[in-house]
Each structure stands twice: as structure tokens, then as C-alpha cells.
């Protein structure tokens, strides 16, 4: 039985279930001090005097520092093709001369205990000369906007991606559909707040750090540079991490401060943030406005997409550089065929918390814009939304498809797959057509129920490389160390499955240590759904090399010459003997010649190799690096059914389904867990979550009472279909990353279902779809219906009660034009049916297919 491909229980669970996990805040060191950051209370101001005397006078305070007391480099860019023109926008570790967002670190207090540190921080008095704040990206790019940086534009960069001749496509199009969409500012909110602990060893001139994750080797290099010591002198210890989702593990000001202060004070320094701090300090994300347009021929074929994006990056460029806008533009075409495409993203700084990546960055936003445009086009063209997608999805024959574009420094070449095929399977497996029928019946009973869907493309398995090392000890236990990190995705189990199968050992005999820079000097990290694809492939190669070494050694120990040897049961066995079923013990009491030897015995034999032996050099293990220059592209379908309470505007997700092609699921249970967890996070982003700011730039959602995460009440039963029809050619496992596809299209699918429920396919166009916004949509629709009937046919009685009305891009003059806009009318009276009879055959028949 092979471990790979089976639903084995997770090796991480026993420690996590019994309180034996090692999260960063669980670690305390003798003589430890506590750090508290003093943060700006103002969104935009020149920084005056910072009076630290009150804090310094307090009992237990060890140090109070501002930018004037330290000279530290700004937070560097980690991922971005060419950061050279971003350097002026990088964030100082402590504010210098000007504060640019509420929450920006201005001073740091160190005390004997965290309560005193907080008392001290409250006594630091900061003088602000307030300036007008810049509230969003479009305003930032506008003329006359206050400038965040002296003699520098608020528009940091314009990021573009394009192919074909967009102008010609739009000129010749039979139909053009254009709409504005907005994705609100959101953040990941892992349940564990960040925590860091650093301890300096003066004698060894070395630093130990607990709390690093995601990209420990990069962070180590930066910290070593700041302290002026070689990276090998900084050890980032392995830790459990309470969820990453993109925001945890990047290098933040606190990562540098903790390390710097530990050496300065010669005592361990610990910092653990509280939730209010987390919500203004950790990377925010999304926050984009799109003006997207689609050009179609008369047959509903997509000729081109054009999109102009205003990306609100917050006050500074941090470690992700321009990654999110770049992913937005390069992934926007998704799985669809089009001859021409052009996307332009204006990246602007504003007086809000800086942004970075959050699960499916760029793709959550771009999928929402694209699929909303397609739903609108379906309504305007009078084509069923599913049919419109069928006509425009790239078929299997058209893949691989070179988009002649680049993303994250790699060419976008979509690998093999069957997008329309997965759409059909998803609809069949989920019973989507019965969802549609049920929704239609309920609408006739005046209930606002609707169905919606979205088809999307993801990207995973980003290079450049990952490193893994396998070692076998004298007891035959296998230790795997890898550059990725454990964030809850279960890589300790998944990577153990790979190693155990290759070495023929049982799973419990394999221990995976991820992200410890001492045990593995080099590595890249866990993000962008790469741990299994790239890390797993490195483990596979290292395990194969270890297996080969074991067979080579066994041939000598068993005197087997070049007879076939097999790894199984923790042993190397003579294949012929194994067939004959004999199981002799090696070299005992003159019994039959030894037919197998355990991996532990081989490890011992290689460890004390006699001179002149034919045994290969030990130890029994190998280290391999797996590099890849192309990403691999999973794809999927999301289906949703929702109900809206017309009185409150609240939306309940009744049914949800995620279908995802992952090439090869190493552990189907953990893949499904990623899809269901991603879907819930996506439902939060679609309905509840938004980081809101006042006109003065004050954050209005600095607690979990205001930034609402979905609970079990809001969780539908999420159905999943994981397909493995097109193993990836980019790696020997055939795997595609599964960490983000659960969230990517949730905003799009739920908005589509809400539009269906309201009979207004082209709205909503803004996430999150809050109750207030739904009530506004209902009022708008009713007003349109009332005006419509007065225009079209005064004898009709106007729809009353919670009646909802037509959606229109342009208000149609005549009643029959109304029919093109879909059948989603709901009315308190029998009016609905009379409208139904007027639907021309074509629109009526296509609705049935839907």
C-alpha cells in the first residue's frame, strides 16, 4: 500500500491536540525582556518631538528608542523582478520625520514584563503636525492629492500585461460590456498573533530567533546583514505557526527590532502582538478598483478583455514589492480564450497600512472582476451564463497555451488540462442544475434565492528551488529536513508520505523538520502553494538518492553482487529471496546467506566503515535541491447557492461546491481541508470582511468585533471534487499546489448567486456584499422597475412589496427589451408569471439549459 495518494492521519496532530505544540509565544528564555511598539495614532503627519522621559522614569523600563537612537536599514523587497525604483518607498523600521499610517512604529519600549512595557508605551508622548490623508488609490493618483513622499509621486508604478491588438478588437466588437468593480481592503487574520523571541550570544557572536516562518532563510539573511554577522551565525528555530495565509512570516519592522535589541541589551527580547495591533500592523491586501471591459462578437465569443486597475498599496512598499498588482494583471485572462488582452494597474501609496499577499493574491481580485464581467455580458447578450463560459473556455486541444506574458519572473505557459470538462463534472457532481431549479421555484414563492458560479485559473509551484535532506539513523528512523515551513497545511505529513514510500519505511518512522536554518543551511520557504510541488520534489530526489546508497551498501553487506535489491519493511531485501519467501537473519549462526539488511544496520555500517572496504562513503542520507523555472497552473470551478433576507439584506450561503484539478493529490484529506478552509475564508471576504477607514484615515475595524470572521453559523457544507486528470510536467510528483484554489473564486461565485437572486446579473460589483449594500441594491432595483413600467406600459401595475426588478445597463424603453435581462423577477403578486409569458422563446429556452 503506498502512502502517497492515501488519506493518512496527520503526524502533526498528536502534539497540536494535547497542548504540546511549540508556538513562538510558548517559548520563554531566562532573563527575558519584553518589547512593546509605540505606534502612530495619526494617519499622516510630520513627526515632531517624541518625549520618552515619562516612559524611562517608569519602574521596570530597560530602554525606550526612536529612529533618532538607531540607524537601521528599511524593510527590503523580497519578491519583485526589479525593485530598484521602489527603494524610496520602503518602510523605515521606526518612522523618520513623517508618519504615514495609523499603526506605524514610532518608538519601541523594552521592560521586565509585558504589562510594564505597555504602561511605558502609553507614556511616550508624540508631537504630530497633521497633514491631509490620502484615502484611496484613485484619489492618490489624482492631481492635487497630498504627496506621501517628498518630491515623489503617489503613483509608485504602472504595471501592465498585454497581448494581441486590443484597440482593434474593441473597435470591431458586436458587443462591448464595461463595468466598475471594487474589492474591499481585507487581511488574513490567522488566529495566532505574531510573536518573536531573539537571544544574543556574545561569546559566539550568534543570534537565536524563535517565531520565524514562511521564509526563514530570507529573513535570516536580512537580520544577519543588520547585525553585521554572517547568516550562518543566525539560527531561525523551527516553530509551529498558527496559520499563515500570506501575511505571517514576511519580514516586518518588529523582526529587525527584536534582533537588534537582543544584541544591544545583551538579554533575550520577546515581542507578542495583540489583535488590535495585528489588525493595523500586519500586511493588508486586496483593496482594488477595476474598470473592466469585454469585447464580444455576435456569437458571444470573447475577443478581448481590457482592465484598468487602481491598486491601493498602503503607505509603503514592503517585502512583496509589486507582486500583487503583477499577479492581478498577468493572471486576469484566467482559463479563457481571447485574441487580445490588456491590463494596466496603477499602484498607489495611501495613508493606510501597507499591503502584501493574502491567499490567492491578485487572483481573488482578478477572478471577481472577470467573472462579474462575464455574468454581465451573459445578461446583455441574452446567453446563459454557463453557456457563455462553455463557448469561451480554452479547450484541451488548445493547451498548453503560451500567454506570451510573464508573472513573477516566469513565462505564463498554461499546462495541459480540460477546463470545460471540469466545468461539466463539477455541475454534475454537485447537482448544480437542481440547485438552479430549486432556486427558481423558491423565487416564484417570493424568496430571494439564487445560484452562481465562476471558473478560474490558479498558479502554484513557484521556483526558483527548494532544498531537502534525508538522513537515516542507526535505529532506522528517517529524518527529513526541508526549507519550507509548517503553517498548518500539513507538510510534515505530506513530505513524510513521499519519503516513506521511496525508502519503504512506515510513516511513523519518518520525522519532518521544516524551516530550521541550522539543520538545513539553505532553503526558500512555504508560500504560493509551493511546499508540496517544489519541496516535495526535493524530498523525493533526496529520498531516491538515499535509497540508491542503501542498495549499494546492502549489495556489499549481503554479497549480492548486482542482484536486484528492493526496499521494503525498513530493509533492503534480495528480490529473489523475497520471492522465495525466506527471511534469513544477516550473518547469524551460519544460517542461509543473509537475504536482507535493515536501513539502521546499513547506517551503522557506513558510520564506522573499515579501511579498504567496498562500502560507499556514509552517512546514509542525501541532500538534494529541486529547481523549476515554470509555474504549474491548477484550475477550478466554484458553484454557490444563496438566500437573501429581503428585510435585513443578510445573505446565507445555502450550498457551496469547489472542483479543483491538482494533478496528483499526495494526501486527498489535506487537499480537501485546504479547499474547505479556503472557501470559508473566501465567504468571509465575500460577505463580512473589510478593513474600513474614516475620512481622517483612522481604522474603524481594529478588533474582531468589527472585522468579522465567519463562524460555524455562516459555514455551509462545502462539497469538493478533487481531480487528478492532468499531472503536472513541471515536477516528478505531477503535483499542482492546492493551497489557494479554495478561496480564489468565492467572491465571484457568491456575487453571481446574489445577482441571480435579485434578478440583477450585473450587480453586485463590490466586495464584501454587506447587508447595507444588499438593501441598497434592492432599493435601486425597485426604483428601476417602477421607472421602467411607467416608461414602458402604464397599464401594468407596478411591482410591489419586496418585488425586485430588472437590471439594466441602459434602461430599456420597451417591455420586450426587458426580457433580455433574465428572468429573476420576484414579486409579491402573480405579476411574475405574466412577465414570464412575455419572454421570447430564445431567452426562455436558454434559461432552461442554465
Amino acid at each position, binding site marked *: 500500500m503506498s502512502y502517497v495518494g492515501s488519506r493518512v*492521519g*496527520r503526524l*502533526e*496532530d*498528536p*502534539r*497540536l*491536540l*494535547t*497542548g*504540546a*505544540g511549540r*508556538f513562538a*509565544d*510558548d517559548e*520563554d528564555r531566562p532573563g527575558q525582556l519584553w518589547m512593546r511598539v509605540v505606534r502612530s495614532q495619526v494617519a499622516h503627519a510630520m513627526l515632531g518631538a517624541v518625549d520618552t522621559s515619562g516612559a524611562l522614569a517608569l*519602574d521596570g523600563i530597560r530602554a525606550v528608542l526612536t529612529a533618532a537612537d538607531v540607524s537601521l536599514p528599511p524593510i527590503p523587497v523580497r519578491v519583485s523582478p526589479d525593485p530598484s525604483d521602489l527603494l524610496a518607498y520602503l518602510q523605515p523600521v521606526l518612522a523618520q520625520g513623517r508618519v504615514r499610517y495609523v499603526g506605524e512604529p514610532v518608538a519601541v519600549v523594552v521592560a521586565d*514584563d*509585558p*504589562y510594564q512595557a505597555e504602561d511605558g508605551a502609553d507614556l511616550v508622548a508624540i508631537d504630530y503636525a497633521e497633514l491631509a490623508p490620502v484615502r484611496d488609490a484613485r484619489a492618490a493618483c489624482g492631481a492635487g492629492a497630498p504627496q506621501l513622499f517628498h518630491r515623489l509621486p503617489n503613483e509608485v508604478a504602472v504595471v501592465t500585461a498585454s497581448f494581441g491588438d486590443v484597440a482593434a478588437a474593441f473597435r470591431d466588437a458586436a458587443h462591448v460590456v464595461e463595468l466598475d468593480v471594487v474589492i474591499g481592503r481585507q487581511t*488574513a*487574520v*490567522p*488566529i*495566532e*498573533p505574531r510573536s518573536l523571541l531573539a537571544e544574543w550570544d556574545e561569546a559566539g557572536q550568534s543570534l537565536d530567533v524563535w517565531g520565524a516562518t514562511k521564509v526563514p532563510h530570507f529573513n535570516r539573511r536580512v537580520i544577519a546583514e543588520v547585525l553585521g554577522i554572517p547568516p550562518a551565525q543566525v539560527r531561525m528555530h523551527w516553530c*509551529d*505557526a*498558527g*496559520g499563515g*495565509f500570506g501575511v505571517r512570516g514576511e519580514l516586518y519592522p518588529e523582526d529587525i527590532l527584536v534582533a537588534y535589541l537582543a544584541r544591544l541589551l545583551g538579554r533575550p527580547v520577546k515581542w507578542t502582538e*495583540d*489583535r*488590535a495591533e495585528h489588525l493595523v500592523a500586519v500586511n493588508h491586501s486586496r483593496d482594488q478598483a477595476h474598470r473592466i471591459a469585454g469585447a464580444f462578437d455576435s456569437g458571444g465569443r470573447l475577443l478581448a478583455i481590457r482592465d484598468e486597475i487602481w491598486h491601493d498599496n498602503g503607505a509603503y512598499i514592503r517585502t512583496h514589492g509589486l507582486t500583487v498588482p503583477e499577479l492581478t494583471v498577468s493572471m486576469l485572462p484566467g482559463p479563457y480564450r481571447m485574441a487580445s488582452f490588456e491590463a494596466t494597474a496603477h499602484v498607489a501609496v495611501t495613508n493606510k497600512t501597507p499591503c502584501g499577499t493574502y491567499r490567492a493574491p491578485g487572483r481573488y481580485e482578478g477572478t471577481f472582476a472577470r467573472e462579474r464581467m462575464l455574468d454581465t455580458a451573459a445578461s446583455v447578450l441574452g446567453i446563459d451564463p454557463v453557456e457563455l463560459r462553455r463557448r469561451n473556455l480554452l479547450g484541451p486541444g488548445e493547451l498548453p497555451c503560451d500567454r506570451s506574458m510573464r508573472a513573477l519572473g516566469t513565462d505564463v505557459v498554461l499546462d495541459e488540462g480540460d477546463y470545460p470538462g471540469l466545468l461539466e463534472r463539477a455541475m454534475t457532481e454537485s447537482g448544480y442544475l437542481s440547485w438552479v431549479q430549486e432556486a427558481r421555484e423558491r423565487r416564484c414563492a417570493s424568496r430571494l434565492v439564487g445560484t452562481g458560479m465562476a471558473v478560474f485559473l490558479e498558479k502554484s509551484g513557484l521556483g526558483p528551488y527548494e532544498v531537502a535532506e534525508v538522513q537515516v539513523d542507526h535505529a532506522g528512523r528517517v529524518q527529513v529536513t526541508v526549507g519550507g515551513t509548517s*503553517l*498548518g*497545511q*500539513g507538510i510534515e505529513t505530506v513530505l513524510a508520505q513521499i519519503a516513506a514510500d521511496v525508502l519503504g519505511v512506515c510513516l511513523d518512522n519518518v520525522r519532518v523538520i521544516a524551516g530550521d536554518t541550522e539543520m538545513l543551511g539553505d532553503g526558500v520557504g512555504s508560500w504560493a502553494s509551493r511546499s508540496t510541488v517544489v519541496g516535495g520534489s526535493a524530498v523525493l530526489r533526496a529520498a531516491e538518492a538515499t535509497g540508491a546508497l542503501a542498495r549499494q551498501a546492502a549489495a556489499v553487506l549481503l554479497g549480492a553482487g548486482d542482484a536486484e535489491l528492493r526496499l521494503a519493511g525498513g530493509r533492503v531485501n534480495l528480490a529473489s529471496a523475497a520471492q522465495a519467501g525466506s527471511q534469513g537473519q544477516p550473518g547469524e549462526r551460519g544460517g542461509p546467506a543473509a537475504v536482507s539488511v535493515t536501513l539502521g544496520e546499513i547506517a551503522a555500517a557506513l558510520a564506522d566503515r573499515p579501511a579498504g572496504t567496498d562500502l560507499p562513503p556514509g552517512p546514509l542520507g542525501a541532500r538534494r535541491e529541486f529547481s523549476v523555472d515554470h509555474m504549474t497552473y491548477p484550475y477550478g470551478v466554484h458553484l454557490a447557492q444563496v438566500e437573501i433576507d429581503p428585510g435585513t439584506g443578510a445573505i446565507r450561503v445555502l450550498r457551496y461546491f469547489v472542483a479543483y484539478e491538482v494533478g496528483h493529490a499526495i494526501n486527498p*484529506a*489535506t487537499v*480537501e*481541508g485546504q479547499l*474547505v*478552509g*479556503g*472557501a*470559508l*475564508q473566501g465567504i468571509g471576504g465575500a460577505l463580512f470582511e473589510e478593513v474600513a477607514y474614516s475620512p481622517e484615515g483612522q481604522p474603524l475595524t481594529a*478588533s*474582531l*468585533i468589527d472585522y468579522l*470572521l465567519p*463562524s*460555524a*453559523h455562516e*459555514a455551509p*457544507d*462545502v462539497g469538493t471534487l478533487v481531480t487528478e486528470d492532468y499531472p503536472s510536467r513541471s515536477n516528478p510528483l505531477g503535483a499542482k499546489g492546492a493551497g489557494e484554489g479554495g478561496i480564489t473564486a468565492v467572491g465571484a461565485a457568491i456575487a453571481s448567486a446574489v445577482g441571480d437572486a435579485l434578478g440583477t446579473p450585473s450587480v453586485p460589483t463590490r466586495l464584501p456584499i454587506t447587508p447595507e449594500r444588499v438593501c441598497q441594491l434592492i432599493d435601486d432595483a425597485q426604483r428601476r422597475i417602477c421607472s421602467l413600467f411607467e416608461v414602458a406600459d402604464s397599464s401594468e401595475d407596478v411591482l410591489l412589496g419586496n418585488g425586485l426588478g430588472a437590471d439594466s445597463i441602459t434602461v430599456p424603453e420597451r417591455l420586450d427589451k426587458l426580457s433580455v435581462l433574465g428572468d429573476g423577477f420576484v414579486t409579491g403578486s402573480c405579476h411574475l408569471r405574466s412577465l414570464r409569458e412575455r419572454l421570447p422563446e430564445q431567452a426562455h429556452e436558454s434559461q432552461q439549459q442554465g
Partner: protein
Amino acid sequence: MTDAHSIRITVNGTEHELAVEPRRTLADVLRHDLAYTGTHVGCEHGICGACTVLVDGLPARSCLMFGVQADGRSVETVEALGTPEELGPLQQAFTDHHGLQCGFCTPGFLMLVTAFLRETPSPTDEEIREVVASNLCRCTGYQGILRAVRAAADDGAGS
């Protein structure tokens, strides 16, 4: 330490005597003074529930209680439910049904549900969802947690 109060707390059957400041939360006392690091702090304002422990048998947010309020009381934390080598029935159900991923919220759910199943050994699905909705998880989407609690209840974990 300013005005410290000496308190006696029994944790998982072991009595502890220590001096704490009045403003020190029970979560900090458990985690940093008594080294019961299985209890986790996720928000410090009573919403996420990761810090849930049982005080005299009832679930409580230990981030919203002061250590001095637990004087003379008996506290149960996740460390009492089983060991990595031998999981308790509810813990076993969580791993069988993939009811955890990062594990940070898990101790809070385990203690909440332990008290719930003692009180309601055979709950309905709606009752389970109602209780599970008291705490937040950001990784699993709750599906595995709900199934685990259902399975544990059916196997009599509450009795």
C-alpha cells in the same frame, strides 16, 4: 511587581500557589507562570475563544479573567485531555475527521466541547453547530470540527 496577591489554583488536579498582580490575566498566569502553554491567546478581547479553559467545570475565556479571580478554583486545560501517545476520545475524533490544521484554535475548541458533551452527551447537529460557533477557526472551515464533535458524541465521549 507592584501589589502582588498570593493565590492558590488547582490546574488539572495539581495545586499551585503563586503571587500575581491583580491585573495579570488567567491566560498569562497559566501560560507564562505555570507553563501550561497548551492554552492559546488569539485576540485578548474574548471573541476567538482560543484561550477557553474550564473553571470549576465551566468554559471560560481565560484572556478575560484575571488570575486573582481563579483563586481557590479548579482549572482544566487541554493538557488534561490526553497525551501525544494516548489521545483522549475527543482528541482522537478531531484527528480522525481532520478537525484541525494549524492547531492554534484547537485547545479552545477541545475544552469548550469537553464541557458541552459532559452537559449534553447526545446533542443534535444544530446544538453542536451552535456551540462550535462560539469559537473561531481560520483554517478548517469548521466542517472537520463539526464532524469530529458529532462522532465523539456518538461514541459517548461525553459520558
